[in-house]
């Protein structure tokens, strides 16, 4: 009231009107309310909508930030197989690869345009520097917005083995997976035809063209055949069947007659199970002879004797039917049907029908046998480290499954040694080494019209050694120009060179 009185006298206002002091104060308050509304809206955007806006697909900031510093590296034998090159563009650095095609199946790719896959994808946070484990003072770094240098991924890959695998595969369509049986460490992982992930790492038109070319290539160079593609394993699967037969007691002596008839007409059908060599064409052969000559009739018969259930559990012990086999890159599910009639079991026991396996799982079969029946979880990464080399996480070997008893495993080992010494696997022999192996030539396609898949799985150790073999390997050649496509002819020499690389190192 006092104010109004004073106002009137000062401004000479009429009785019923507030003076300029009052209206001016109101107008001033209005202007300040406008500015407070701005502050409120700013708070809404900068605090409450921050996350959604930062992660909006059209917002380039996260992408710019992630490429603002060199990416951490993927390491093989302590040396980087990746790198980062300054671009001079909006994205300051792009990925480079020292030997892109050789390691593409290991690294995957890191592209500014097409994202990250495999190790590049799984450890993207670590490599790009956003993994909180890289920060020494996480809270302070967050406040100061300090970006951590990218961490490094140390792989288990053996450089010599990987190079031998790539060289051996050459221009053929195929894959190699090599494992250290005692630990499950993956020593080689190769897939051909390969590609250079460095060609589309950036965001230029050339990068896009390179990507489009790779996508359109009917040879599917970007398919990781070692991990992500399954093939009928053919006769290499007979190792599993033999193991199941011994483990179940269907066969107690590898040299004793098995009682397998010839010709073997599959139960419930009129179709005989044919053999590829005439050496198999007599009844009552031993398991040893059947393995050495890769006799379909005998192994199909034994599979049926073992029975579906035991066959399934043995196959699963080696990694079949596991849809979540992560190395940590996830492998495709290898298949052994769990519901079949007897003739289907017979076909599956020789690696046909619906049986399909990744090279990785077939390497696990060889490695499991070599490691006295204990299948180790395959592992591609040794440890994760900060840029200064200090470990963030160290991976330890882990048992996947005790698939066989040591005694059964020992018997299967001997069968595999016999295959290499006297049988179809002679091409894998290495002077001064004990090698066990199994060939496979798998029919596929409509009426088996496709070029057969040539398989070879094996393990090797220095002659006279009683230790677990240091290497087991699986090789598949999916499509070759060779006229004589057999596992022993095409795949065994590649396996041998990979094993030699490990033994020699």
């Amino acid at each position, binding site marked *: 009231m006092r104010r109004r009185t004073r106002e009137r006298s*000062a*401004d000479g206002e*009429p009785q019923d*009107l*507030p*003076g*300029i*002091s*009052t*209206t*001016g*104060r*109101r*107008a*001033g308050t*209005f*202007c*300040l309310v*406008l*500015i*407070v*509304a*701005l*502050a409120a*809206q*700013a*708070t809404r*955007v*900068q*605090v409450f*909508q*921050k996350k*959604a*806006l*930062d992660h*909006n*697909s*059209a*917002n*380039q*900031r996260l992408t*710019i930030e992630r490429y603002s510093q060199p990416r951490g590296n993927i390491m093989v034998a302590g040396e980087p197989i990746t790198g980062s090159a300054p671009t001079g563009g909006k994205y300051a650095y792009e990925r480079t690869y020292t030997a892109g095609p050789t390691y593409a199946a290991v690294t995957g790719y890191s592209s500014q345009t097409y994202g990250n896959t495999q190790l590049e994808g799984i450890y993207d946070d670590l490599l790009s520097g956003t993994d909180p484990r890289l920060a020494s003072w996480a809270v302070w770094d967050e*406040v100061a*917005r300090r970006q951590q240098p990218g961490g490094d991924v140390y792989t288990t890959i053996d450089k010599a083995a990987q190079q031998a695998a790539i060289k051996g595969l050459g221009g053929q369509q195929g894959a190699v997976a090599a494992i250290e049986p005692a630990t499950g460490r993956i020593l080689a992982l190769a897939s051909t035809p390969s590609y250079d992930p460095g060609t589309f790492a950036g965001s230029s038109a050339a990068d896009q063209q390179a990507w489009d070319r790779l996508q359109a290539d009917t040879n599917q160079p970007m398919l990781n055949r070692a991990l992500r593609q399954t093939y009928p394993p053919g006769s290499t699967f007979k190792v599993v069947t033999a193991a199941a037969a011994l483990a179940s007691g269907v066969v107690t002596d590898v040299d004793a007659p098995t009682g397998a008839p010839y010709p073997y007409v599959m139960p419930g059908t009129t179709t005989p199970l044919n053999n590829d060599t005439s050496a198999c064409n007599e009844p009552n052969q031993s398991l040893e002879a059947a393995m050495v000559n890769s006799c379909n009739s005998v192994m199909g018969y034994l599979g049926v004797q073992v029975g579906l259930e035991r066959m399934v559990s043995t196959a699963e012990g080696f990694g079949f039917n596991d849809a979540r086999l992560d190395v940590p890159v996830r492998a495709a599910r290898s298949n052994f049907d769990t519901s079949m009639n007897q003739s289907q079991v017979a076909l599956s026991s020789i690696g046909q029908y619906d049986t399909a396996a990744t090279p990785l799982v077939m390497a696990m079969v060889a490695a499991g046998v070599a490691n006295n029946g204990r299948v180790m979880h395959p592992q591609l990464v040794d440890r994760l480290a900060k840029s200064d080399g200090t470990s963030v996480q160290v991976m330890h070997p882990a048992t996947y499954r005790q698939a066989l008893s040591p005694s059964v495993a020992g018997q299967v080992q001997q069968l595999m040694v016999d295959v290499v010494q006297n049988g179809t696997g002679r091409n894998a022999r290495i002077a001064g080494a004990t090698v066990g192996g199994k060939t496979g030539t798998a029919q596929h396609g409509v009426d088996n019209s496709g070029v057969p898949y040539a398989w070879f799985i094996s393990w090797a150790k220095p002659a006279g050694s009683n230790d677990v073999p240091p290497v087991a390997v699986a090789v598949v050649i999916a499509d070759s120009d060779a006229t004589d496509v057999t596992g022993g002819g095409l795949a065994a020499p590649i396996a041998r060179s990979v094993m030699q690389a490990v033994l020699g190192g």
Partner: protein
Amino acid sequence: MANSPATVRAGVPARRPVRTRRNTELALVLAAVLIAVFGYIEVGVNTDGTVPPDTAWYGAALGALALVAHGVVRWRAPYADPLPLPIAVLLNGIGLVVIYRLDLATPGSSAAPTQLLWSTLGVALFIAVVVLLRDHRVLRRYAYIGALVALVLLILPIFFPPVYGSRIWIQLGPLSFQPGELAKILLAVFFAEYLAVRRDALALTGRRIRRFQLPHGRVLGPVLLIWAAFVGVLVLETDLGTSLLFFGLFVIMLYVATARSGWIAIGLFLAAVAAVGVGRFSPHVHSRVTDWLDPLGSIAAGQGPNQIAQSLFAFAWGGLLGTGLGLGHSILIGFAAKSDFILATIGEELGLVGLVSVLMLYALLVSRGFRTGIALRDPFGRLLAIGLASIVGLQVFVVAGGVLDLIPLTGMALPFVAQGGSSVVTNWIIVALLVRMSDSARRPAPEVPAQAVPEGS
């Protein structure tokens, strides 16, 4: 000046010694210059790891401008409010730093030196106003001619080619000038004079319709006509920001003068009608309303982020504390990053904290303007100070509200901060007028009470 008991007993309020606060102003001005120089250094260190080589030169230039301006205030307006000048120096300094920072991200374009040149001109005009204009009431004489000049200035750009869809620029060789900026002051002077003279007639005469009193046509008519002419020209030029500003300025000053809140209701009604009309018939405006309502809509439509979306991305990326000067990516916003959208860079690199600080600087400047208006005794001066303060407040709201997606984007310069010569110059003149008027408001009355009219000169 003595606070003797005798005067108290006589019923005359004891006059306290008036503190001029000039030293406060000096300290604040120096602090403002220092902050700007530190910002300049931060940009250099964050972008290429070194202190910019011309830091000393830049600091000296800004410091010299600020100190000369301060010296002139000390000399010619010793009782002036100590806050407007430091605030103007700080905002101008921040603007220069951010423009320099954006220059670094846009090769081949350097706006900071030009802006420094315009700032120098602005300070020169500040000095000229403070020195030459000894009493703000002199401006009353030029109110009408000023309005005419303003109208001519506004019409001129029609004869020049449009820039980004708006005909608001006068291009003379390399120089471009936005006459709407200067017209703001002339219009405020005109409104202040017209309303100061006619406020009683506007408020009290005329026919009464129910509770609302409609003034005589001959009183309201001329001002409505002039206002309509201004807004009409601006609509033709599609300068929505300035027309919104003129509209708001008119409504606020009318309300302050007459205390009739009915004017506000009518104003808002007219604004709504105009907004709907313009929004429907102008595709330029229509798209802006669409963007305002759904700033991320163009992304969903597969057309990529529009400018508002980019602006919001920038603000969000800054978060609470900002990325630090030079470390944001607000260059993604595009062509108006140094002018209309400069606030987005402040929000991104200084964060919510920095953004709100800048907003509070404006709030402080506006409130000091209103304070000056309320403290003055003459109606013209009161209305003028309030009008000028409203211009700053409204302009900040219109431009910041636009880039923050609070209101549709209209395109305006952020006072002192945005790139743009006419804007910087105009705002320095506004601050000069506020300094001049606050000097009048705070100057102690002469000792002899008999001569009651305090004349500035």
